[in-house]
Each structure stands twice: as structure tokens, then as C-alpha cells.
């Protein structure tokens, strides 16, 4: 068996098939978790009719969407309109290449794995912008513009937030980062980094409270207003596959990935990923949506400086306590205190949005 996996072609084929089927299958699971979890938190039940406990609801929805008529607006740029879902979908699948399901069980153990994730991950916003631009719909365009703005802003705190982790682990490879968390998951050593990363990831994949590009109460459906049928399903898939990828990355770099007692490693990984997604559902259920200028203010005035401070604090800690033996309680307490104090004081200092704008065009 090991000899078979040593063959790069077999390795490539096996993991490609596995990852695509995992992504597509897990997306159904995510949709189920989201709808049931959210329903339960909203004092209702969620879908419970199709199949046992409503498990087949996502399948039924997929079949329904497949049978829908594909409508392309008359003024749309047809080629771009057609290409957009694919351009949005492919990079999301590529992210899974560096996600370790078990020790070394990944398509490619790149030594710059983390960098690769963010380099690839932001490409899907090109697809979203293509969708918004080509639909020739004002709502779509506004949504796509908001997406570009939020992606450009949130890439920076997103990447800066994990530099702390990289300093602690001493590697950019995702598998090495997981291995470095054998004693202690990095969420305890990097609470501030985790919070910033989580919030920025929510903004990056456009989940509430940062889901401005498909803000249903103001932009109808944002960039995919004009999409129907299979193309709409692709965007729906992108949305949840992105969420799955981000949750997988968060559980890899902050929650210890496949590390864990008793259960098999791949199960630990899945539990952590789905648990992270439940937190995302939880925040979506609770929070209202921020405004576009507040989104920008939050990225540039709040998350960026805090991420930089986090890097400095982590660097100092690494210098003072180079190799913590056992559980580094001092570090944990210091880090949580720093995170709490910084979040409270910094949010008091910053100005959150601009308010009314006096326009000259009247």
C-alpha cells in the first residue's frame, strides 16, 4: 500500500478524487448543519421532512436547482457570465490540496502551504466580480464591488494574524504547523490571532456579519441576483466550500488539526472543522450586518494594528521563552490578558465608520 502511495501519479489521482468528493459531500453536511442549527437557535426546527431528520434536504435542493431553467439576462456579457461560476469554484477546491486530514495525508505537502492557501483563496473573488460585472444589474455590480473592497482589505489582517502561528511553529507547511501543536493548540497561545483570523475569514468568505456582497435585505442577492439553475448552484457551492476550506484551515492552524486523543486523527479533523462551522452559524444567527465603511474601518483601524501588535508580542514571547516545556501557563495567561485588554481599549479608541456624507452631486 505504501509503495502504491509512493507513486506520485497514484497519490495525485487518489487525493484528487478524495478531495473533490470530500468537498462536495461535506458541503451538503454544512448546509444541513447551517439550516438545522440555525433553525434550532431561532426556535424552529429547520428542514426535517426529506429523508431521515431532513438529511436529504440538500440533495433535494440540488436536484431542484439542476432542473431549473438557466436564465441569462439579455444585456449580460454571456461568456463572462458563463465563466464566472467556474472561476469562482476552482480556486476553492484547490485550497483543499494543502489541508492535512491525517499526518501527511494531503495532496501536496507544500513548504509554503499557508501562503498558497491565501494566494489561491483570493482568486475566487475574481469569479465573483466577473459575475457581478457581467450580469449588467446594478445590485450585482454593487455586491461585486463590495466583495472586491472587502477581499482587498481583509487579506491583510488575515495573513498577518497567522504570522504569530508561523513564528511559533517555525514553518509555513500546514502539516508541520499541526505537528507543532502536539502539546497545545495554538488557539491558547494565539487568542488574539485566532479572533482576528476568524473575523477576517468570515469577511473573506462573506459570511455574516460581513456578508455585504449578498446582503439579502439591501442588495436582494448581491452578485448572483441574475443567476439561476446550475450556475446559481455553483455559487451556492462556492459559498459553502469556501466556508469549509476556511474552517479546515482554522482547525489546522489554530485548533491542532488532526491532533487529539482517543479518536482517529481524520475524525478529530472533521469534528474540529464542523465545530468551527457551527460557530460561524452561531455568529450568523446572532449578529446584524456591518456597513461597508464600518467593514473597512474594522479591517484597517482595528484588525490590522491588532494583528501587528500580536506579531510583536508573539516575537517577544518566543525570544523570552524559546522552548516551553509542558503547558506554558504563563504564556497562555499573558496572551489572553493581552488579547482582552487590546480588544477593549483599541475598539474604544478607533472611530467606527463615518456617518453621513455630504455629497456635492445633487
Amino acid at each position: 500500500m505504501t509503495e502504491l502511495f509512493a507513486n506520485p501519479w497514484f497519490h495525485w489521482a487518489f487525493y484528487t478524487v478524495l478531495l473533490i468528493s470530500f468537498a462536495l459531500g461535506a458541503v451538503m453536511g454544512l448546509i444541513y448543519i447551517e439550516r438545522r442549527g440555525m433553525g434550532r437557535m431561532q426556535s424552529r426546527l429547520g428542514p426535517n421532512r426529506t429523508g431521515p431528520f431532513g438529511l436529504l434536504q440538500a440533495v433535494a435542493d440540488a436536484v431542484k436547482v439542476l432542473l431549473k431553467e438557466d436564465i441569462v439576462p439579455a444585456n449580460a456579457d454571456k461568456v463572462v457570465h458563463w465563466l464566472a461560476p467556474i472561476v469562482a469554484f476552482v480556486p476553492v477546491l484547490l485550497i483543499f490540496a494543502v489541508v492535512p486530514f491525517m499526518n501527511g495525508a494531503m495532496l501536496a505537502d507544500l513548504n509554503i502551504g499557508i501562503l498558497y492557501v491565501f494566494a489561491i483563496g483570493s482568486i475566487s473573488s475574481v469569479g465573483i466580480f466577473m459575475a457581478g460585472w457581467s450580469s449588467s444589474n446594478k445590485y450585482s455590480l454593487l455586491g461585486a464591488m463590495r466583495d472586491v473592497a472587502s477581499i482587498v482589505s481583509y487579506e491583510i489582517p488575515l495573513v498577518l494574524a497567522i504570522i504569530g502561528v508561523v513564528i511559533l511553529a517555525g514553518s509555513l507547511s500546514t502539516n508541520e504547523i499541526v505537528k507543532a501543536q502536539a502539546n497545545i493548540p495554538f488557539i491558547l497561545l494565539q487568542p488574539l490571532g485566532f479572533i482576528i483570523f476568524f473575523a477576517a475569514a468570515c469577511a473573506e468568505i462573506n459570511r455574516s456579519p460581513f456578508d455585504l456582497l449578498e446582503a439579502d435585505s439591501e442588495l436582494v442577492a448581491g452578485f448572483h441576483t441574475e443567476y439561476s439553475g446550475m450556475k446559481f448552484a455553483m455559487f451556492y457551492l462556492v459559498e459553502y466550500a469556501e466556508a469549509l476550506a476556511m474552517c479546515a484551515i482554522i482547525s489546522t492552524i489554530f485548533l491542532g488539526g488532526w491532533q487529539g486523543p482517543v479518536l482517529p486523527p481524520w475524525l478529530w479533523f472533521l469534528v474540529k472543522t464542523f465545530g468551527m462551522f457551527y460557530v460561524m452559524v452561531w455568529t450568523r444567527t446572532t449578529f446584524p450586518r456591518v456597513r461597508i465603511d464600518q467593514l473597512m474601518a474594522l479591517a484597517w483601524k482595528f484588525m490590522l494594528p491588532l494583528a501587528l501588535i500580536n506579531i510583536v508580542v508573539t516575537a517577544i514571547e518566543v525570544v523570552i521563552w524559546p522552548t516551553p516545556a509542558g503547558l506554558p501557563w504563563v504564556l497562555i495567561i499573558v496572551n489572553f490578558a493581552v488579547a482582552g485588554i487590546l480588544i477593549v481599549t483599541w475598539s474604544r479608541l478607533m472611530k467606527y465608520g463615518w456617518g453621513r456624507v455630504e455629497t456635492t452631486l445633487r
Partner: protein
Amino acid sequence: MKLHFGNGLLKGMLVTIKQNLRHPTVTQYPEQRLNTSRRIRGQELVWNKTRCTGCATCAKACHQGAIQIVTATNTENNKYEVETYRVDTGYCIQCGICVEACPYDALFMGARYEKAKYRRAELVENKEQMADSLDRPVSGYFHPERAEKLPVQTLLVEKINEDRSKE
């Protein structure tokens, strides 16, 4: 505007996650049916043939013009008869004013609420269909003596029995 994050967000998140421990409010409709109000103004009218004198007060009271009533004298057995009594339930807005107007307690609201029809023509009901029968229960609207016979309304206030004053 100055805000400091954390407190309000966490408080809200606590409220939503606590909801998982509570009973959901919803009812699974076709399996579970709640009793409707005893005074429900259902989607049909029930007409009592023996009590109706054909005075047409209901037809005059109906501001929608949904009730059609034609009376004639039956010369054979020397009686005054209601020849046609027809209600177009498509026009009816279930306001119940006809029931209130009836001076002889001959007209009632129906208690059923599932009355979807496939064709518009089926919405017009004649006097045979409107007769007081078992498959057409009578609601207690404006007739308290009828209301007592109906089951007690299921109330959400009573269905979800949780004391939240402790929290």
C-alpha cells in the same frame, strides 16, 4: 461613535445558544393540528334550511355581494320557499357580518379551515352543500351556545410552558 466590542456581542450569542435547550415553537402541521378558536370564521358558511325564512337580511348585509338568494311562493303546498341560496366563497372575505345580521339564527360560520379548491366554479356553493351536516362543523361565531360544543383552542401561551423569570 465610540464602542467597545465584546460585551454586547457575547450577551447576544448566549441568548441564541440557550435557545437550543428550549422547546421549538413550531408545530408540524399535517401531523399535529392545533385546535382553532371556537369562534373561528372559517372559509365557508353553514345554512340552516328549516330556520331560514328567506328574508335576505344576510344578502343585504353582505357588502361583498357574495350571497345570492331567490325566494318564491310554492303554490302547490302553499309555502314560501327559498329557491336559490348561493354563496360565492371566492368573493367572501369571512367578515361574519351576515351571521351577525341573521335575525333567525339560520346562518353560521363554518369551523373548517382547509378549503382549497382546484377550480373557481367550485367556490360557488349552493344550499345543498351549505346544509348543516357532520362534515361541515359549525363555528361558534356569534353563537356562544355552539361555541361550547367545540374543543378548546390550543394556545401558544399554554403550549410552551417555560418559566423564564429565573434567567
